[in-house]
């Protein structure tokens, strides 16, 4: 364990430094501006010139970002593991498709229904989590995912039996490019809501609740109500992700929502970095795009095929192979995930000094997960 230095002294040093550094120089501003513009171009302009199929992949990456953020609320803010998150997303997808195809309602109503159903499911599961904690709750979510796959998704009217449900894109956003911007807009909204939540009393109370529920209670936090609220938010975001996925693929089928997907969701959130919005979005997008990148850049394929005796690593299973390896790497060496690694860059882009040592709060051992 590293020795703990006198913190008041350290604070004084940082204070001195901060006082002496009065902001970036003009060159510093210019550099930051250029990077911002490059990022904006990459996200907003680059997809315009690409093929429809490729843009669909980018939309999926954006939607995975939303799903990652939803799982981050549970994993990162509340501290509960959900190994059945694909059920939330899948049910949202089917709900939206059902509303549009079977009930001939508008896309927006479909999305609203998906969000509501996602939140409702999560509320029920949240109620369960109040009675069953930690490891056992993870087990329950795993079993729930299986029930979704084997029972809920077999309901004929809801999911078209084994056939699946069609989900045509909405008017006004019927091209893949326009749909991409729609998804991007939703992602921005979700990130904003998450940001505001964590900056105000709800988010602070959640962090306190996760680490030390007894102390949170003495601060006046209604632990049960807040836990349920957080579950609902997570479920609502997941439902939104599901709805957007449905229309992106213009079709929803039960086979997509497997246990493997549940693990990919968890892995992409952990590797992205718990409690780091940008990290989670980057991690999720990466996992959504791995398969596509492998197809696009055969040089990566060749590198992997260099392993003797290994058949081609196809796009579908690449995330399944790479995911666990990255997960192990994150858990053992880089617990803060991608989010922790990019903190210096984030700080720099926000106009602060580039500080390689900025690694965020030291991870506090959470020992109250009762098994």
């Amino acid at each position: 364990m590293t020795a703990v230095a006198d913190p008041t002294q350290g604070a004084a040093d940082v204070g001195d430094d901060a006082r002496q550094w009065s902001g970036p120089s003009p060159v510093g501003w210019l550099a930051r501006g250029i990077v911002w513009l490059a990022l904006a171009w990459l996200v907003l302009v680059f997809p315009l010139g690409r093929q429809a199929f490729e843009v669909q992949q980018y939309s999926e990456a954006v939607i995975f970002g939303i799903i990652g953020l939803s799982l981050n609320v549970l994993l990162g803010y509340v501290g509960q593991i959900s190994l059945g998150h694909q059920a939330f997303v899948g049910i949202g997808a089917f709900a939206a498709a059902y509303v549009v195809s079977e009930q001939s309602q508008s896309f927006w109503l479909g999305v609203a229904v998906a969000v509501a159903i996602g939140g409702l499911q999560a509320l029920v599961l949240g109620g369960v989590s109040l009675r069953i904690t930690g490891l056992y709750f993870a087990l329950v979510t795993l079993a729930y995912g299986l029930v979704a796959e084997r029972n809920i998704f077999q309901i004929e009217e809801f999911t078209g039996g084994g056939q699946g449900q069609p989900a045509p894109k909405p008017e006004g956003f019927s091209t893949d490019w326009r749909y991409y911007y729609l998804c991007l807009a939703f992602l921005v909204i979700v990130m904003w809501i998450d940001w505001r939540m964590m900056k105000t009393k709800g988010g602070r109370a959640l962090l306190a609740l996760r680490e030390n529920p007894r102390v949170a209670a003495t601060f006046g936090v209604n632990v049960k109500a807040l836990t349920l609220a957080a579950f609902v938010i997570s479920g609502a975001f997941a439902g939104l992700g599901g709805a957007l996925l449905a229309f992106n693929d213009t079709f929803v089928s039960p086979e997509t929502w497997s246990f493997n997907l549940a693990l990919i969701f968890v892995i992409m959130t952990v590797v992205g970095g718990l409690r780091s919005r940008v990290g989670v979005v980057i991690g999720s997008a990466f996992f959504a795009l791995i398969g596509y990148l492998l197809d696009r850049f055969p040089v990566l394929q060749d590198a992997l095929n260099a392993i003797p005796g290994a058949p081609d690593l196809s796009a579908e299973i690449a995330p399944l192979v790479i995911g666990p390896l990255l997960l192990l790497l994150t858990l053992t060496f880089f617990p803060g995930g991608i989010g922790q690694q990019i903190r210096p860059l984030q700080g720099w882009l926000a106009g602060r000094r580039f500080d390689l040592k900025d690694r965020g709060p030291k991870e506090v051992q959470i020992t109250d997960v009762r098994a």
Partner: protein
Amino acid sequence: MSVLETLGVSIRFGGVYANTDVSIAVGEWEIVGVIGPNGAGKTTLFNIITGFYKQDRGRVVYRGRDVTGLAVHQRAALGLGRTFQNVGLVKGSTVRENLLTAQHLEAEYSMLAGMLGAPNTFGVERDLNERADAIAQIMGLGDILDSYVVGLPYGVLKRVEIATVLATDPDVLLLDEPSSGMGPEEAHELGDTLLDLRKAFGLSILMIEHHVPLVVRVCDYVYCLNFGQLLAEGLPDDVRNHPQVVTAYLGEDAEVPGLAAVESQIESLLDTE
């Protein structure tokens, strides 16, 4: 009229009778001490008062109101603040964030409004931050507001914890061994702080303590618990010299008539060196 009372509170965990028929009272603006050997049931009593445990028998009355059915956060909303033996803070957050979180009930906007970024939330947040600054200044923590709690030294942590519980705007403070880990000078300063806080904030204080000089100096009334039962109560000096209290601390064979006699014996020994 007492601001906080327990009436005949009893609780049992399996075969252990942690509290038996404990009745204590804290008057308005009083500082009341609870002493007793380890395992006497003092923290259990605190847990019952604040709502972490539900007693088997008896009542907890706050400002004339029976709060037995209320949850922890509801009692906090009424004005019961408390500290913990192993420092109750959110260690993964900064001091400022702790002070803001503690003002949870003061933040006059709904969680939903906060999430959506309603305009009034920004003004309220500014107020909360100002209040956090003020409390930090009073407790001498202005320099470390943006430090993470997890790295701070123990003595500083205890001050942060007091600042945080003050931020919950309590009427009654329940302090669980506030002077633990402190030497004589620090404990003396703590006593000063408690007296000042009582005057400045109009607080009533109930504190579990082992530090006898602090108890004698600061407390208006003292209760002594042993094996879950009230052993003695009264003015600090009376309780401290009570033969059964001495026995409880020093053991059955202690023949000394009182702690005062022991202390003077030690002093005279030191004088002869």
